[in-house]
């Protein structure tokens, strides 16, 4: 057999059976197992854990029938229930924990089906790292993640550790170090030089975590070249609670109102939120596109929270302007800020018809009356006109009335986006001394009552 072939055989993974091969599985990679397998050394009481993978590289399924580990200081866990069928190109896994009880060499036998692998580990003269968890000292395995938990940024969490001599002789305890130095994890009162510690003796130290910035933070604690991973999460400051502040406590339809958001306290961090509004018209009435924030004419606007400020900032400044529209109903504001989701409603009650402008004009051969306004009930039903002369007397023929029901219904049906807005023009052919006409009084009725213009002068 050539030397090349011998070398090739030496690095091949051990076949556990005709089809099965054994690997160490570390960091997502399969590393072929050769016997004897050195698991390394650690302090008595400390732990080394290894993950093994049994791979079926064949084109047919095979069965794992034997999986045993024997030896002082060794234990197997997360192992499969036997017998276990491993599909073609499939695998099964198990873990081995090595925890020496003293200094010295520890050996164990691992059997995988017909494959025997010798495991070797050592208990070195090193101290055991233990963490105080609620009053109980718990040993921490090399490479383990030491979880500090979560804390608001710029606040701190402390963790207490001790290095215990679990051997029967005196050992030298080297000072711990944290990498990166000067980062978010720091040693508190570290002992600066090596110390001799007798059997059962200990040296304590603390690690404090404090971060200026939010996020998950990690560092490496090193003891006698043994790494331990430190992990903590710094939370962003919570955003204060927002309170909607309306400039008018009881706004009416057809108005532009202002709303601000005051924070329960000055913000300690920046952030953003959204203010939404929704319009729910009274039963039977349509939505009103005029209801919305201005000038964007939208129903949702963003805002920013600035550190140190107790008022939020809209694009338009510290106040947002919104239109209340011309339809009776309810505007519901929803404030979304951090975890806050709060609603506040403004109600707009049905009213008589509101007139924005009312004009009476004398023309050639007649008069014209123009009304512009809104009916927030969309129920306009009747109109009357009463003309007056300059001498104060009423002009003939006196009261002129007309029903409006059908006209308003048709108008609003054909114009679903106007809300309650309307313009009404009434022309009256007239003969005689038009110059004697002084004005006209108009009354327009909806289901809430009668709206009067007063005297409109020509």
């Amino acid at each position, binding site marked *: 057999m050539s030397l090349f072939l011998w070398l090739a055989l030496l690095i091949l993974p051990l076949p556990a059976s005709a089809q099965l091969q054994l690997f160490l599985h570390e960091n997502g990679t399969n590393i072929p197992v050769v016997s004897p397998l050195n698991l390394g050394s650690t302090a008595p009481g400390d732990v080394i854990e290894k993950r093994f993978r049994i791979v079926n590289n064949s084109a047919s399924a095979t069965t794992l029938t034997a999986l045993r580990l024997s030896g002082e200081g060794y234990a197997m866990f997360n192992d499969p229930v036997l017998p276990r069928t491993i599909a073609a190109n499939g695998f099964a896994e198990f873990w081995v924990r090595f925890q020496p009880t003293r200094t010295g060499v520890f050996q164990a036998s691992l059997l995988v089906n017909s494959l025997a692998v010798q495991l070797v580990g050592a208990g070195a003269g090193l101290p055991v790292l233990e963490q105080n968890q609620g009053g109980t000292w718990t040993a921490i395995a090399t490479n383990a993640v030491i979880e500090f938990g979560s804390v608001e940024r710029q606040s701190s969490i402390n963790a207490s550790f001790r290095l215990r001599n679990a051997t029967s002789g005196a050992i030298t305890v080297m000072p711990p170090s944290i990498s990166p130095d000067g980062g978010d994890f720091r040693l508190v009162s570290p002992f600066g030089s090596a110390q001799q510690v007798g059997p059962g003796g200990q040296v304590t130290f603390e690690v404090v975590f404090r971060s200026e910035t939010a996020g998950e933070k990690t560092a490496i604690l090193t003891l006698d070249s043994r790494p331990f991973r430190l992990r903590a999460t710094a939370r962003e400051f919570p955003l204060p609670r927002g309170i909607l502040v309306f400039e008018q406590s009881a706004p009416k339809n057809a108005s532009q109102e202002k709303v601000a958001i005051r924070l329960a306290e000055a913000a300690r961090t920046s952030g953003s939120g959204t203010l939404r509004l929704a319009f729910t018209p009274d039963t039977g009435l349509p939505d009103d596109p005029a209801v919305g924030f201005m*000038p964007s004419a939208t129903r949702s606007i963003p805002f920013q929270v600035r550190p140190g400020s107790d008022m939020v900032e809209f694009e338009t400044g510290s106040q947002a302007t919104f239109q209340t529209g011309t339809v009776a109903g309810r505007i519901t504001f929803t404030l979304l800020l951090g975890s806050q989701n709060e609603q506040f409603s403004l109600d707009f009650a049905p009213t008589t018809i509101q007139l924005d402008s009312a004009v009476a004009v004398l023309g050639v051969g007649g008069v014209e009356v123009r009304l512009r306004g809104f009916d927030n009930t969309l129920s306009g039903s009747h109109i009357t006109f009463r003309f007056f002369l300059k001498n104060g007397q009423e002009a003939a023929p006196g009261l002129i009335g007309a029903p409006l029901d059908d006209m308003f219904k048709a108008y609003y049906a054909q114009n679903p986006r106007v809300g309650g807005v309307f313009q009404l023009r009434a022309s009256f052919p007239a003969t005689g001394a038009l110059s004697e006409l002084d004005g006209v009084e108009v009354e327009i009725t909806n289901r809430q009552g009668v709206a009067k213009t007063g005297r409109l002068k020509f």
Partner: protein
Amino acid sequence: MPKPVLALVIGCLGAFAQTEGISNAPLGYLVTQSQELRPVYGVAASFTLGDPVAGGVLSASFSGRCLVWKTGNELFSSCEGEQTRRQSSPGGRALIAFGGDGRPKAVYFPEQELWRGFGEEHTWYKLSLPGTVLSIALPDQATLRILEERDGVFWLSDFALAGGEKRKEEALTLAAPVIMDRRGRVASFAHTLGGSPALDWLGEEWIVVRTPGEAGRAFAPGHPERVYLLPEGGPQ
């Protein structure tokens, strides 16, 4: 006692049927920042924009009866009940003067400093004024009045609509901002916004206040203390 007889021939319902009756007539028209011409509907403090009626619009004027708008090199006019008319024109914006009947009577092109009667059949006149022309109007059937600002002072100049000769020029003592109505009457509006933003008419009943970089606002001449935001967008 019998009422004095004024032979008002009334048929209210019939009158509605013969005229406009109930409608959603626009308050006026806005040229948006994206150069869309859009009608403005509603009442005070409850404005909405209608769908765009034209694009690429540089300026527009609305008398309540007629709408005139200017694109790159064309001038359009649309009066109620009539077909839209189009005429070629110089580039840039156009200022429009309406007659008492609401129809356009004269047009001024600020970039070219040219004016003429409204229609391609009219003669061009060169207007050489030292200041910035803000608006034009017709105080009577024969006169074109021009409101101009020269170094913070407002001036009125009258020209003969036929012939183009200057008839009058006077400096005003009004404080900024000054606006002129369709009859050539001028007034200063001490609205609540402060500063000297530009004023323009939005239809017949509302004045638009424009400050560069800010949303348009509107107030009615009778209530300059009540200034409302105008929408910049809206459902289309």
